[in-house]
């Protein structure tokens, strides 16, 4: 291996580098999180002492995040959006996995690449293109038929579709990888033991895919939760948390309450990540 001797200076240096890297990774998050506890109106040095006001205080000017209606509302919308995106993208990801692992049809390779492409389209462009199509369609319907298709206007639904459009690639890849590992003889064995087609799917194939589906769902949830670029163009009046926070930062002025939100998000995502790891490490994938 590249580093043989456990004690060699090279390996020591290597370890230091790795440690430095992880400090690099953690630094901005720690600083974003730490200022949540600074007893100051501005998220900046100097340190004014420890406080939990930015979480729990219910009075201005130090309105804590748990009393800040707008942030809580943003959190709520983020949740709603993320849940829908996760559910939809896991569903389509699963059908895609079956389509590309099991299906035989002309142009399969081409379609497979098409499936991967959304992942590499810049998010801004995805957002814009969907916005343009939706608006044009809505305008056309309005002008032509005097039909107001409100769901085509910026709003929750378009945000969900916008995020779904590229997150589905991620879930498809995750679930496809798992399905590829599935030993198809397992299904034949189940048939052979007398199970019907539906039963085989329900008792053998889907349970095998479940860890991947859950993991994909969690990833989809996290990615949706933190998405900004695509959402920016599609958001209507119901702004998810990232947009709310951005508006707060760029248009109102940030207080450590944003740090408090960041802190809570980190804790939440961390727990979700741990959960997904625990699920991945299930008995069927040893």
């Amino acid at each position: 291996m590249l580093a043989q001797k456990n004690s060699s200076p090279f390996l020591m240096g290597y370890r230091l580098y790795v440690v430095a890297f992880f400090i690099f990774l953690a630094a901005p998050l720690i600083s974003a999180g730490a200022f949540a506890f600074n007893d100051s109106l501005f998220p900046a040095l100097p340190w004014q002492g420890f406080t939990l006001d930015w979480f729990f205080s219910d009075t201005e000017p130090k309105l804590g995040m748990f009393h800040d209606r707008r942030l809580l509302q943003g959190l709520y919308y983020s949740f709603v959006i993320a849940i829908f995106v996760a559910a939809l993208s896991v569903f389509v990801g699963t059908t895609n996995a079956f389509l590309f692992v099991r299906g035989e049809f002309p142009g399969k390779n081409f379609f497979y690449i098409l499936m991967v492409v959304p992942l590499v389209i810049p998010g801004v462009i995805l957002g814009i293109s969907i916005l343009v199509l939706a608006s044009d369609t809505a305008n056309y319907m309005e002008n032509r038929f005097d039909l107001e298709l409100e769901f085509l206007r910026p709003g929750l639904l378009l945000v969900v579709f916008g995020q779904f459009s590229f997150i589905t690639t991620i879930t498809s890849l995750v679930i496809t990888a798992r399905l590829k590992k599935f030993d198809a003889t397992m299904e034949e064995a189940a048939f052979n033991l007398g199970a019907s087609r539906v039963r085989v799917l329900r008792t053998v194939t889907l349970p095998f895919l479940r860890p991947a589906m859950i993991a994909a769902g969690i990833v989809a949830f996290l990615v949706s939760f933190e998405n900004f670029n695509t959402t920016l163009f599609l958001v209507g009046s119901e702004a998810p948390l990232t947009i709310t926070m951005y508006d707060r930062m760029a248009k109102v002025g940030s207080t450590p309450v944003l740090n408090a939100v960041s802190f809570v998000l980190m804790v939440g995502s961390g727990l979700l990540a741990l959960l997904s790891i625990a699920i991945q490490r299930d008995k069927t994938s040893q």
Partner: protein
Amino acid sequence: MMQNKDIKRLSLILLFSPFALWILLLIILPHIGMVLLSFREKVAPRVYEYSFANYLDFINEPIYWNTLLRTGSMSLLVTALALLIGFPIAYYIAKIAGPRARGGLFLLCLIPLWVSDLIRSFGWILLLRETGVISNFLLWTGLVGQPVEFLYNDIAVIIGLVYTVILFMIVPLVSTLDGMDNSMIEAGYNLGGSGFTVLRRIIIPYAMPGIVAGCIVTFMLTAGSYLTPILLGGKNSSWFTEQIYNQFITRFNWEGGAAFGMLLLIFTSVVIWLGLKLSGQTLANTVAKS
């Protein structure tokens, strides 16, 4: 199970329709719409004509293509840095860390994903600004005599971008290196190769699909990023996505914005196509595998 060819057909169609709806309605049609829009020119309020004006605009205005080239070259730089910084980390995780440490380290790598771009940039601002943590720390140690500004320049943008995307470099690298049999590396040494030879002739060629996959995703994410360059960038740093945004939002010029969007897409696609050609890889065996 050949006896029910029809069932097979039917299930194929059922499986194909979600895929088709997704790709058609959310990817292909919007992009066609964008192409069409990009060929429209506003000649008067509420009056439009088909023309190449938006593209001509781009060609005639050095600001635009300079920004695009700048975005492209900075993205390449960020991609290269992410590879250089990330490869040793991926290697450590896949090959040197013990099996138990491996999972933990991998999890640590995913930490930046836990929060949004916005918070990450926010964190960097708190660290880098003239009155920020790093500057204060340096003052405190006495290494510098007065506050230093690290924010609002290209280096800050690059740091922020590398930070944001490095995860997408490390993940595919770890997964390809993980699949590499350790005995391959040992064989490389055993046959007389030095550390450098083994790296150059065995590890890197083996990891090539992962490297390319990581580079593609990294490059695309960088070129398409919006918040990080905006928030960390200085007075001279413009980013192409910012111009797209400006076209749409500040100038209400959807036609121009659509054209810019197409240009960004074409430009990045060409870069990636070149990259794939040069490395002899395909999209299917790189990104699709990660």
